[in-house]
């Protein structure tokens, strides 16, 4: 077992453990904190995949913004979070079964694919992926349409969310 594999396994166990806690723990704030741990593990995964830009934006966007938004929303709907009773609905065992079946099916499907055991190729020398990404995002034969549409989508999300959540003072 190489060092790389050992690091991968530790990070994977932490991430998946955090994810399991997210979907099982009763207290919603605790769930959000476990979610943050899990998201951080995913960020380290991006680092292992030599995509450092994704590592940092994962932390900036998911932990710094989305998780905080969720904690705010939990605090705003506080009374429900402390309601007694089960935190899962009646069909939880069916959901668990479905997830297990899906997982087995996915792994089985991947294992029949020839590219499943692709080993790590060398990254092309002397190329700054962030530069390439930046160029691709705004070049017409690249991803300029998704780039601008993402901006419009975010604008729409902002307006929509404000319309829905905003309560005019009277």
């Amino acid at each position, binding site marked *: 077992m190489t060092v790389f594999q050992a690091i991968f396994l530790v990070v994977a166990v932490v991430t998946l453990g955090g994810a399991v806690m997210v979907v099982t723990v009763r207290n919603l704030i605790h769930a959000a904190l476990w979610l943050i741990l899990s998201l951080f593990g995913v960020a380290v995964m991006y680092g292992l995949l030599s995509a450092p830009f994704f590592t940092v934006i994962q932390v900036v966007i998911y932990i710094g913004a989305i998780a905080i938004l969720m904690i705010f929303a939990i605090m705003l709907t506080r009374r429900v979070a402390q309601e007694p009773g089960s935190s*899962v609905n009646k069909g939880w065992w069916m959901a668990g079964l479905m997830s297990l079946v899906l997982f087995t099916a996915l*792994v089985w499907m991947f294992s029949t694919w020839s590219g499943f055991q*692709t080993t790590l190729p060398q990254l092309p020398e002397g190329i700054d992926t962030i530069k390439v990404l930046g160029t691709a995002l705004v070049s017409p034969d690249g991803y300029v349409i998704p780039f601008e549409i993402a901006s419009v989508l975010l604008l729409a999300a902002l307006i929509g969310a404000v319309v829905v959540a905003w309560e005019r003072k009277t």
Partner: protein
Amino acid sequence: MISLSYFLVFAAALFCIGLYGVLARKNAIAVLMGIELMLNAVVINLIAFWRFRTPEMIAGQAFGVIVFAVAAAEVAVGLALFIAIFRRRNTIAADEIDLLKW
């Protein structure tokens, strides 16, 4: 030596845990957390395929960035909806929000 299989199995596991959260949890915000886990699994897959199959092309990373934007938009609108529902009905348990079924 590490291979693509590691990351694919990991992402599949993360996706399925997220799916369980979406299907089983009562609280709508917890459901949204499950969706976040699933989206993260998707981005891991995108980056892993980029790294292992086509490191000379940038498509995987560009798609990943777009998924980030979509995830953010989804969370923003989703949570706004929950807050609005909570304000009117005083609950955000997913199985009690059932006005539309008639």
